[in-house]
Every structure is written in C-alpha cells, then in structure tokens.
C-alpha cells in the first residue's frame, strides 16, 4: 500500500499555436497593459499603502512592539517577577530587580531590557505577565535603527508608549 502519494497531473500538452508563444505573449502584454491603464485611470485600484502617512488597520490581536504599563502614579506596573523572561523562548528579556522604597510595591525593575533583534514577537511574555504590565498592543513594528545597541529597548523606551 502506498501512503501519502499524491498524483499530480502532468502539464497539458500545448497546442501548436500555444507552443509558438507569440499569441500568448501578446495576450500577456494585454493583461499587463490592462492593469496599467486601469491603475492610471482609477488610482483606488492600487494596493499600495503609503506607509508613514497611511497605516494599515492592524487586527486587534496584532503583536507589535512591546510597551510597559504604568500604575496610576506613573511608576511601572512591572514587579520584576521574571515570568516574561522565563517564558521568553528567544531569551531576549533582561531584568534586574530592585528593592522599592515603597513597601507596598516592594519589588520593582531596575533594568528591563528587551533585545528587539532577538525578539520573535511570540507574545509569550504578555501571556506570562501576572500584572498585565507588558503588552504588545502598540500596533507598531520595531522601527529600524543603525546600531545594535539602540535596538535593545530599555525600560524608559518601553514605558514611553
């Protein structure tokens, strides 16, 4: 018994006029010219999104650049529990925890770096966070930059948005 064998149809043998290609090429030229003319006449047929000015409507579950949430008093909501760093399959989150002067907060992140060059945008960190402190709902892609260092986002960058 053969398992998983799919019979693929051989390409149909071309008729003689087809095998000359000439007519087919002219037909093809007609298709492309049709597209061009219709695009010149009706600009709305063009699919391009002019990116910086116009932005695609991101689906609500789109996972973009991370941001860190703040409490009402402006301090980061993050309590440096390392759950995101533990869940991260790319190991791109570096946290250093510190003792907060506020005993009600107790623990806060001294450093919270995400290496955007390593990040795979899987969203595990968001899933893992017990405090809803990290979200990926900015709808932004990681902007390009010219050094690696600038693409390691620090806590300040992440708190901005």
């Amino acid at each position, binding site marked *: 018994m053969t398992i998983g064998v799919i019979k693929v149809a051989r390409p149909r043998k071309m008729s003689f006029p087809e095998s000359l290609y000439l007519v087919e090429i002219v037909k093809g030229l007609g298709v492309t010219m049709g597209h061009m003319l219709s695009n010149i006449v009706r600009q709305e047929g063009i699919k391009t999104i002019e990116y910086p000015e116009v932005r695609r409507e991101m689906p609500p579950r789109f996972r973009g650049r991370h941001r860190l949430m703040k409490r009402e008093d402006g301090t980061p909501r993050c*309590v*440096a*529990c*390392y*759950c995101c760093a*533990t869940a991260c399959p790319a190991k791109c989150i570096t946290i250093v*925890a*510190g*003792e907060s002067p506020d*005993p*009600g907060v*107790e*623990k806060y992140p001294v450093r919270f770096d995400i290496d955007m060059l390593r990040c795979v945008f899987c969203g595990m960190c968001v899933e893992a966070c*017990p*405090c809803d402190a990290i979200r990926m709902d900015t709808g932004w892609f990681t902007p390009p930059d010219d050094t690696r260092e600038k693409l390691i986002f620090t806590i300040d960058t992440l708190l901005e948005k």
Partner: protein
Amino acid sequence: MPTLTINGMIVDVPAGTTIINAAEKIGIEIPRYCYHPKLSVAGNCRMCLVEVEKFPKLQTACSTVVNDGMVVRTDTEKVRKAVTGVLELMLIHHPIDCPICDQAGECGLQNYYMKFGLHKSRYDLEDKVHKKKVQDIGGQIVLDAERCILCSRCVRFLTEVTGTQELHFFNRGDHSEISIFPGRPLDNNYTGNLADICPVGALTSKDFRFKCRVWFLKVFDSICTGCSKGCNVDAHHKGDILYRLKPRWNDAVNQAWMCDFGRLTYKEMNEARLLTPFVREEGARKVAAWGSLLPDVAFRLKAAAEKGGTDRVAVIASPQSSNEELYLLRRLATERLGTSNLAFTHRVAGDGFADGFLIQADKNPNSRGAQLLGIPDGAAFDALVSKIAGGGIDALLVFGNVLGPLSEEETAALLAKVPFVAQVGTNEGPVSKAANAVLPSASVAERGGTFTSHVGRVQRFRFGFPARGKAKNPIEILVSLGNRLGAGWDFAGEASVFKAIAGTEAPFAGMSYDSIGMFGQEIKG
C-alpha cells in the same frame, strides 16, 4: 518491629516511627508544613492528615506513631478533601504576591496548591486581613507576616536549635501573626536557616532577596570554606555567578544547618577575582599569558635554587587549598625545589570566634589536611616569615590570598624583601598586590577536590562551572610547574591526585572518592 500497610504496601519500621517517616521510606510523600525532621513535632498545620483504619477521625501523620498491623491510606477522597480544605483555609488571608515573592518556585503553598488545591477562592480580595510586610527583623531575614501560615517551624528552630527564642506568635484567630518583641531583633549566628525552613515566603533571605528567581538556579554539592567545620552545602549558581549557599543535610557534620558567616562565603567567589595572569613590572600590572608565565615562574624558582642554594627558595602553602593541591605543592617544594622552607599557617586576622556548635575558631577549611600531609604549621611559619624578613629568600611561591594574620602593610613590607614572589590565588588581596607574578586560580566552585575538616573528615567539593576569565585549576598549575622542573607528572584532574595520596599518605590510606561519597569519610586514627 511493627509492620503496617500504607496504601496497600506493607512496610517494616522500627518502633516509635511516625507514619510520615514510614510513608517516606516507601516513597509516599505526605504533604506537610509544620513537620521538619530536625525539629520537634508540632502537628499544627494539619496538612499531613491520613486515614487510619479503626480511627474515627483523620490522623496527623507527623505525630501518629505506628502500631503493628496499622492500615493507613493517604490517597482516599476523604484525605484529599481534608487536605484541600486545610490548604484553602491557609490561603484565605494569603496575599498571593508570588510575582514579588522570593519563595516562588520553591514554595510549599504553590506546590501543594497545584497538587491538592486548584480551587477557586471563595474569599474576596478586599476581605483579606492585611498584616505588616517587609519587616527587617535582624540577622539575614526579612519577615512578611501576611504570607505566614503559622506553622511554627521558625519558633521551634529558635527554641530548640539556637535557644534564643526571638520569634513568637502574637494575637488570635485571623489576626495571629509571627513577630519579634519590639526592639529585640534576631540575635544569633544561624538566622539564615529560618529562610530555609520556612515552607512559604514569610521568612526570606535579605542577602538573596530579589537577586535571582530560583528556577534559573542550578545546584551542585560543595563544602563551606568559612571554617574548619566543613559544613556540607548546596551551591546555587546561574551561569558563572554563585547566588547562594544552602546547607546540605549531613547528620555527621552540620545536620540541616549552617551559620550566617558561612552563607556569605560565596561572595568572594564572585567579587574581586583574579581573572588574568599578570606580572608586576616597576609597580605596574602587566597582563601576561599562561604560555609564557608558567615557564617563567618555573625558571625563576629553579634559577634561585641553583644560584643561591635551595635554602633561598621558599614555598608558603594555604589552608584554603584542597588536599590534592597541598599534596602536589609539598612534592613540588620538597622533591623538585628541594627546599625545606615550606610552611603554612591556620591563623587568620580577627578574633577566631567559635561557638561549640558549627562555628570553629580555625577559619580555614583544610588546616587539618595540610597538617596531615606533612606541611608544618605555626612555629615553622613564623620562622619562615622571619627568614624572609631577614632577606634570606630569593624566590617565593605563595598559595592563597593572604599571609595568615598579616595585614596588607605587613605583607607588602615582607614580600618586598623577596626579589621574586609568585602567587597562586583566587582573589585580589594583600598578596596579589605585592606579588611579582600572579597566577589566577579557579575558585572552590570552579574546581573539584577534598577538604579535611577539623575532626579529620575528608569531604568532597565538586566542580560547579568552568573557571571565570583565564583562571586555571591550581592542580593544572602545579602539574605544569612541576613538569617544567622535571617532575614528569601525568596527573589529570583531582581524582588521579587523590589516588596517589591514598596510595602514599598514611592518614588517607585506602580512601577513594567512592568511599568518601556524598557525606565524607573520617580518617583513621
């Protein structure tokens, strides 16, 4: 010998055994909070309830002594419901602040909730009784009264082991909490153990607080280097950073405890380490390469011996070195350099505090080993120091970071008298600041070997992770130096050296790493 049945399995135990221990013997784990094998039985957490035939009510496994013919079940629905109920009761007022709790990952509440609880909370968050968090109660401990489940392990530890009785229960009912008397903080040298025995996050270590989540840590067996007691420890590390030491149970040495001084000895394996070999030229450090420095040191030692006689070469050993290293060093000094100027001292700066329990006056882990291997101590060291001070030594090989109790100035003045000083050490210290050539050594966590405790118990410490920077295992350094002086050694690693020790050194005769095992072996005689 009573014979009983637990979950259908028959087990023989000595008379007087409790059910919890009998079950452990056949691999059945009964949940517990207040029960601790090294403390008295309190029976107040009610987690270890089991069903015993002919008993009308569930029994606490920790306090019920077995009888012949007893039939115990730990897996019935009744037991499960009871345990779940107990757990729910304990969690009623628990703040569930696992994200900021250092105990997370090794917490009894977390583990048993996942195993027995998994219930929905029937208690509103606002109704919880709040108690004082983040209290510095002295010693190495931070207390969070909210997380406490009132198991009383800490109270019993402070009563039965240290006898200092700082912690007590206060208030009643929901508002019961554990605390110290006002103005009477923890005052003993074993406070770190409280964090270990606390099954939840109520008592956590001030030193380890927020440093690392426990699930990132890896563990290896080691020996505390803080004194000659030789407490067995578990060393916790992530990568090449040690984060904490915890006592490893060894009934013959430290039971389940260790002192607060010993707990902090891990720091010197992280900080101020010597990481690259270097030489000192006109007062300035110059990084050197192993490949050129080792032959150079060997050559300088040999040259001094050949020029001024073997009497002008000296070797100072360190009681911080392992038996294996001391053995090789002795052979290097006596056989290869042919000098009798070989000594060490067990004395250190400070008062040499001892308490008759775990803390010993001798603050070195292997003074006994050095003595047993025939390296002279005390007077011989003083004689050697005065000889050096008199300018009688041309080349000196020093092991260790300090010269016994000598201060930095004294060390500098003394070593200035010697034209060439080579040091094998782990950390920056008085010696590395004065030595002409520094050969960085792997720390205890980065190498393997044996220490001999003050009672003559030979115990192994294990290799944890590769040496930091360019540091090398001192055995490797010694073998390399020895071979450059014509020894022809083919030792590879500490095991082969220990085999040689067991073969030639009388106190160690017949020993092997197998016979030492996990818990060590006492020398004969």
